[in-house]
């Protein structure tokens, strides 16, 4: 029962934000999202004390759809990621003056609600509803508050919307088929299904289309860069920080345990595709002129590695994937915030128009550099823990995968340092760069602190997620 209050809190928060008017909206949204974060910490406490937080209630009897939520360690980790990032994302908007502010902040909270629901849902149809629900707010955020030419933006956002929706329809078909087999959408019932190899293959493929587009895995990624570039930064943060983790999380929660044979049978293809994304994303990132697009391709590379970890079907791979999801979530939000901070001062996202900023603002530069270092997974950052674990799992499958995936540590350093050099270093820029405001600095410090704290001491998170991952592995290896 307790978990529902969290969803209610976020939903009410969205409503309250909308009603509070443009002036107060940001503060109300921050208050509610912080409340949600606090409440998730309370839930974490309950979970660690051994309280069973799972919740199931009958909802629709024909067809048999239940309002079922599952809160194990894995879901809890994703929930915490969502509720921790949401206030940060809201807070990052404080420096902007949005028109119709109440709507955008309400949409952020609503999106947070839908994503939290996706992570918690333990009934296929409920999960599907949350999954699609999350698409609506981001569609409007990107469309209405985005930047650049309106027509082009509309095109990019619409493409993204139809593309992901289209992919999800295959997943829905998959669920309907599963329902016909199991007579229920409940996760627990679906786990019990003993499907044949062929059945698993089709289910797996149906899910794969939805997830490959959402994550994205190449070649299903073409919506990403444009949308990241065109969306307002809060939207990009929501997308890259949390929403793409919905896809990765679903791989672990739904795809692998329901159709493990398909995953095992095509393991090399799946890992190969994911690793190809790592290299492809890194190489494309090298030659990007737009900072946000560069970060988008860097994100493509990083999630490729996460997906590769998940498809190893090993304890290390799954655990590393989850660790890396969390690390990546914070890092990417931080980096997009950096892009936003520069945009607020220089009104450009083109790296060529930056440069020579370091002299003017050493503090901001340090924070930026720390985020860059986290992104390239310097040991002692949380990203290293995740990346190391994933690469180790790849090694257990095949040495070649570890080497190819490991290229990320070389290529990643290349494009990130190159970008940093041209954005920040060099002769002092003639245009003045105002030092970061207190709010901006605070947010950056928070993110960096999280990344370095867990980089040195990741045990709490590892302990939290390990039992649920072991449980998933039991289903995979049944």
């Amino acid at each position, binding site marked *: 029962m307790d978990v529902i209050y969290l969803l209610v809190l976020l939903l009410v928060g969205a409503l309250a934000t909308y009603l509070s008017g443009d002036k107060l909206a940001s503060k109300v949204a921050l208050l509610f999202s912080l409340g949600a974060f606090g409440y998730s910490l309370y839930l974490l406490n309950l979970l660690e004390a051994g309280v069973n937080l799972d919740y199931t209630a009958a909802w629709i009897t024909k067809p048999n759809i239940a309002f079922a939520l599952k809160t194990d360690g894995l879901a809890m980790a994703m929930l915490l990621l969502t509720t921790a990032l949401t206030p940060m994302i809201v807070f990052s908007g404080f420096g902007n003056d949005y028109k119709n502010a109440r709507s955008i902040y309400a949409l952020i909270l609503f999106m947070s609600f839908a994503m939290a629901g996706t992570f918690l849902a333990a009934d296929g149809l409920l999960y599907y509803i949350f999954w699609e629900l999350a698409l609506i707010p981001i569609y409007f955020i990107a469309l209405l508050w985005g930047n650049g030419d309106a027509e082009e933006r509309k095109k990019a956002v619409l493409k993204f919307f139809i593309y992901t929706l289209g992919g999800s329809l295959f997943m829905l078909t998959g669920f309907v088929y599963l329902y016909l087999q199991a007579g229920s959408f409940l996760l627990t019932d679906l786990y019990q299904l003993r499907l044949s190899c062929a059945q698993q293959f089709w289910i797996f493929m149906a899910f794969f289309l939805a997830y490959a587009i959402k994550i994205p895995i190449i070649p299903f990624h073409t919506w990403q860069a444009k949308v990241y570039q065109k969306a307002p930064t809060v939207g990009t943060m929501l997308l890259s920080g949390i929403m793409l983790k919905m896809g990765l999380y679903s791989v672990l929660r739904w795809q692998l345990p329901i159709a493990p044979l398909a995953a095992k049978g095509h393991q090399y293809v799946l890992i190969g595709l994911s690793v190809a994304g790592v290299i492809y994303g890194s190489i494309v990132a090298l030659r990007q002129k737009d900072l946000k697009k560069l970060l988008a391709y860097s994100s493509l590379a990083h999630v490729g590695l996460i997906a590769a970890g998940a498809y190893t079907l090993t304890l290390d791979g799954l655990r590393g994937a989850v660790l890396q999801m969390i690390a990546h979530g914070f890092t990417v939000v931080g980096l997009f915030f950096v892009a936003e901070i520069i945009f607020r001062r220089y009104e450009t996202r083109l790296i060529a128009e930056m440069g020579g900023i370091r002299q003017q603002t050493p503090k901001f530069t340090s924070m930026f550099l720390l985020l860059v270092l986290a992104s390239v997974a310097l040991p002692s950052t949380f990203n290293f823990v995740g990346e190391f674990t994933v690469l180790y799992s790849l090694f257990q499958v095949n040495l070649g995968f570890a080497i190819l995936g490991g290229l990320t540590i*070389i290529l990643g350093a290349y494009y990130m340092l190159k970008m940093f050099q041209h954005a920040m270093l*060099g002769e002092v820029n003639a245009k003045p760069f105002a030092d970061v405001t207190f709010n901006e600095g605070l947010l950056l410090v928070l993110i960096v602190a999280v990344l370095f704290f867990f980089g040195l001491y990741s045990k709490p998170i590892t302990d939290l997620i390990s039992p649920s991952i072991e449980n998933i592995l039991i289903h995979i290896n049944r």
Partner: protein
Amino acid sequence: MDTTLALVLVLAPFAGFLINVFFGKTLGKSVSGTIGTLSVAVSFVVSLMLFMQVNATKTPIQIALFDWIQVGNFKVDFGFLLDQLSLLWLLFVTGIGSLIHLYSISYMHDDEKMHTFFAYLNLFVFFMITLVVGSNLLIMFIGWEGVGLCSYLLIGFWYKNQEYNDAAKKAFIMNRIGDLGLLIGIFILGAAFSTVDFATLKTALETSNSVNPNWIVLAALALFIGACGKSAQIPLYTWLPDAMAGPTPVSALIHAATMVTAGIFMVTRMNFLFSLTPEVQTIIAVIGAATALVAATIALVQNDIKKVLAYSTVSQLGLMFLALGCGAYQVAVFHVITHAFFKACLFLGSGSVIHALHGEQDMRRMGGLKKVMPITYITMLISSLAISGIFPLAGFWSKDEILMTAFHHNIALWVIGSIASIMTAFYMFRLMFLTFWKDFRGTEEQKHHLHESPKLITIPLIILAILAAIGGAINLPGNAWLNHYLAPLFSVAHQEHVLGTTEYMLMGIALAGGIIGIAIAYMKYAKQGQLPEEDAQITGFSKVLYDKYYVDEVYEFLFVKPINALSRFFRDYIETAVSGFVFGLGKATMVLGAQGRKVQNGNIGLYLFFFVLGVIAIISYLFLAQ
């Protein structure tokens, strides 16, 4: 007690870093520099205490703090190992580190960001200590990448110059190529032995024989690739000469005395692995010898005083790897230490010269400095004699050990090592004569301002020169303290060379080689007073050497250009194509829909036609199915 001491040892420089980052600017330059220096000095004192303890008890100190990373079959402690090897390294890292910090107080005093400089330098020492004291491969890896980061920050310290930034970036990326190798090595060992802890790995490797030997070879090779990156060996050496873009104290500390020896440290640390793989040892010896020779030939013709020293460092590191490849770990360690003394002294001395000349680094614009800078001259002279292997200075003993080992291993390696050594003597004295002898060739303006450097600069020079002179005493043949001290680390007892006729002959040849090298340099540059040509006049093979065999250009052609071209190709064509394909799918649907819409045109007749067609189809199917 030990834990506290160890934490002080590690955290003192980190505290210095934090203070300088947050309060450095307010504290002012002198205070900032003093704090930076003291924090390293504290580590030195603690190292000394721990060293005496371990030297007396002969028992290494193991400290485990907390779990850091957990993977399926092993977990990694955040732990320290203070044994003979790490303490030895700590002593010269923190000792020379303190001297270089002291030197920097004066050297960097005119720089507006002096506190930042000390912050980075402290951070470097912190990571270097972490690298050395880590009790397992992964903690070592934190330090390993951490020093790489500091190297990046310090090479690009004058960040307004994009060329310097390029050099910094290059160093970081090339190191990362090696780091991938190191990581793969860690994976192999972790998967095979369920541990990456040095002590347990040692036992496991010595007792277990269930592991496929190919994996062990591969692991050793992978680790060696890591060492190549950090210690600038072929093919990953080209970043080190470029790294001279950093301020000179950085070159002395990081790119000569400490960080670049990390590869040798790691191989020595993992000696129990390398000793099992003679194939890899051969590769190490060959690469080391090749690097020693190639770098020495390049150093022959360089005119930038720091570039000469940089290639000299690469060459000397090559000699150390030659020793490692021969399985003579003690000998390599011995040369690491003596090299740290004289090379740090030489770099700091060159810094003193550059300082006096207001940034001039081209030896063609120097000359005649020995009268105005006597202390710099004498200390550098001692160090040059030491590196040239002149009896009885430190370099003589350590280099002689290397050559002797090579001789007993393979005569070809000995020949290569000896040639490299003769070249070393030549280019070092070319440097000395061009810089200090004859008349001053700079501008009148510079001539007016020539001066000996202040005490904060000369004192470290004097101390290092003394060490360069007498440092060999720690491992004299017949009374080899270092060999005995390090003996517990090695499973195979080190064969001490019995001093027979051959050995004395080898010593004589090495000494004669050094003297010949010096003599040629003397004839050319002191007696005849030749000057190196201006850049445009350099021709023939000298030009090939002067342009460093065009290796940078080859790498640019083979790797950098193709990958950037690929990136543009992906960006401009593949991305558009894939995206176009998706749009094509959308368009196809629309076309299909448009065609479909034509059917829904309200024409009852057409509907009826299709209805009848359908009914017929169903009925015929039912019949046929029966």
